[in-house]
């Protein structure tokens, strides 16, 4: 990320125009029941934060999807990470939210409380500084995030090699979003009339990538920005497509999303990663939905370097994030929601992450 200028032209609609759009959505949804899913956790949060559900028609339901990188990280991956950190005395370097996600034997926070080194960084390049400052210790950088975060991590990996850092390894937990969207549609567990496509991810992957994945589905998919005005206008646009029986990939986030996406970022990622299968919380193994380091970088791969004595056995908990992520359960339908499970004492990742559906409902829709 080097400058902020690309979003300088925010399309700001006035209150009267908002009123008009909301009225139009009501008119379009007048007869029938409609279900729309927002894939992305940032949309989930903004929809809750702006109370958008409260001004939409009752018969238009917004369901939240699996678009929260921390939430979809599988228990076995967290357990593996904590396992190798303990066994090999590794320092763990990660982005924020992950440290609070409870695994079978506590979270990374617990690991830190037990005296292990767990560092939260804002920029992945900080991991290099940390590793260089403590050459006697081995570190593992946790690569988490969708297509949006991967480019900066790919850059970091190239730097690790360039600088010859020998004590920093990489655990790729990255996930790719189009395959997951497709898997969700294929599962057919929920009936959807339309989809709100993720804004940031699409900025990177472009409209084309979605078209490849969704070409066999008769459902409209509209990529939107994250401001409440973007979302309301986008929902209106999506409802029109639904009513007209049009399907395909559309974008109302024209200030950021192009057909090709960010080719520079895509190339950077392709240089460093190969596509692999990946386990998603709630969705299981999704083919070609993850990233692993290319053979050229495999000497940095934590999975190849650090093995546990026995495979992790995930302990089942009462948390129902899996169902929440698939859109089959609303947060408040989980018996733990807001009673036992709160952002200060989260029982599952959907309550931990700022992009998690349970957190969004708790913080903004729990009045």
């Amino acid at each position, binding site marked *: 990320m080097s400058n*902020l200028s690309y979003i300088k032209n925010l399309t700001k609609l006035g209150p009267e125009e908002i009123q008009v759009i909301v009225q139009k959505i009501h008119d379009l949804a007048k007869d029938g029941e409609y279900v729309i899913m927002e894939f992305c956790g940032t949309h989930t949060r903004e929809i809750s*934060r702006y*109370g958008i559900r409260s001004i939409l028609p009752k018969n238009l339901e917004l369901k939240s999807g699996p678009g929260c990188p921390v939430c979809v990280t599988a228990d076995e991956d967290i357990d593996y990470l904590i396992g190798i950190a303990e066994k090999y005395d590794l320092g763990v370097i990660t982005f924020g939210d992950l440290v609070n996600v409870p695994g079978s034997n506590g979270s990374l926070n617990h690991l830190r409380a037990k005296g292990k080194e767990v560092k939260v960084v804002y*920029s992945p390049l900080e991991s290099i500084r940390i590793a260089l400052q403590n050459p006697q210790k081995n570190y593992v950088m946790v690569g988490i995030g969708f297509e949006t975060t991967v480019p900066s991590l790919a850059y970091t990996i190239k730097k690790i090699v360039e600088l010859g850092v020998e004590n920093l390894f990489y655990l790729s937990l990255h996930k790719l979003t189009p395959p997951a969207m497709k898997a969700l549609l294929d599962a057919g567990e929920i009936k959807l009339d339309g989809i709100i496509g993720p804004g940031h991810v699409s900025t990177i992957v472009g409209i084309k990538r979605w078209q490849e994945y969704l070409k066999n589905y008769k459902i409209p998919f509209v990529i939107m920005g994250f401001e409440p005005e973007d979302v309301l206008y986008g929902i209106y646009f999506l409802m029109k497509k639904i009513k007209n029986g049009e399907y395909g990939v559309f974008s109302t986030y024209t200030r950021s999303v192009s057909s090709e996406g960010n080719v520079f970022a895509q190339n950077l990622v392709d240089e460093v990663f190969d596509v692999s299968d990946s386990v998603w919380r709630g969705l299981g193994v999704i083919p070609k939905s993850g990233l692993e380091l290319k053979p050229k970088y495999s000497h940095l791969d934590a999975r190849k370097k650090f093995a546990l004595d026995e495979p992790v056995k995930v302990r089942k908990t009462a948390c129902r994030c899996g169902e929440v992520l698939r859109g089959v359960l609303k947060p408040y339908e989980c018996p733990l929601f807001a009673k036992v499970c709160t952002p200060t004492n989260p029982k599952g990742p959907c309550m931990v992450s700022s992009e998690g559906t349970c957190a969004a409902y708790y913080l903004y829709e729990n*009045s």
Partner: protein
Amino acid sequence: MQDIILMAHGSGGDAMRNLIEKDFIKYLSNPILNELLDSGVFELSERLALTTDSYVISPIFFKNGDIGRLSVFGTLNDLCVVGAKPLFLSLSFIIEEGFPVADLRRILASISQACNESGVKVITGDTKVVEKNKADKIFINTAGIGVIEKHRDWRNRKIEPNDLIIVTGGIGEHGLYIMLERLGVQTDDEVKSDLSNLTDLILGALDRFDQIKFVRDATRGGVATLLNEICSKYGVEIEVYEQDLPMKEWVRNASEVLGIDPIYSACEGRAVLVVGKSQAEKVLEYLRSHPLGKDATVIGKVKSTNVAKVYLLTRIGTRRVLESLKGDILPRIC
């Protein structure tokens, strides 16, 4: 070789005395401190306020300040918002072994400048050095003492429905700017912390108006958390208007990119005031005439004494609860 802080600098021996005599006294000299007694000794016989705060920040040097300036102004702000005129500070360092002495001097010079600008004195202090990796570079604790003249003491004024909520300037700047720094984003000159000493602005307001019923500076947790503190302390319902929240354009843009809500982002030079309706306009006029209050705005009002909650009226016309900050504030990775 570059001079660095060693364990010996905190051991109480000669290395420490050298550090104190050469550097601390050089930068912070004043008659009370120079006595080098175990306590700074002074006389006062009025209503006093005492506060303390610890400062931990990364990066320690930033565009328009550093951990030293922050540790002075932060404590001065805590004093002035209760109506106290700051007089004396204590200053304690916890330094990680290996910290460059040049950086320590830079911090001391900055503390000295901040004190001179504000007319306060450091009259006692302490230094501890901890082993490498047992602290992140340098931590500073300051305590401050100030006197409260009776007319500035707002504590017994009663908050009532229709009182207005005023914020003295743009919100969220310090927190978002520091986040951008940590991410290594190149930023324009206008993108910086709002770090400032609010003493003159706030004491000036308290001198002029007797209907200022509450003042607090918005720091960690941002304006939203502060408003929630008012609600639970006084049992009042507050309504805030999103559209009226003063916010610089870069704050808006950065918050969209990072996914961080400026209303939860830290300030270091903004205060929130609860003001009786009859004086609100005049208070606003005064604040805006001051360089540190030129963007002062009414952002909401006290609605009732029925529920202790903050509600936000959003710009798209919806109304929802505005919670205090839960957990950490982190950039999105989605």
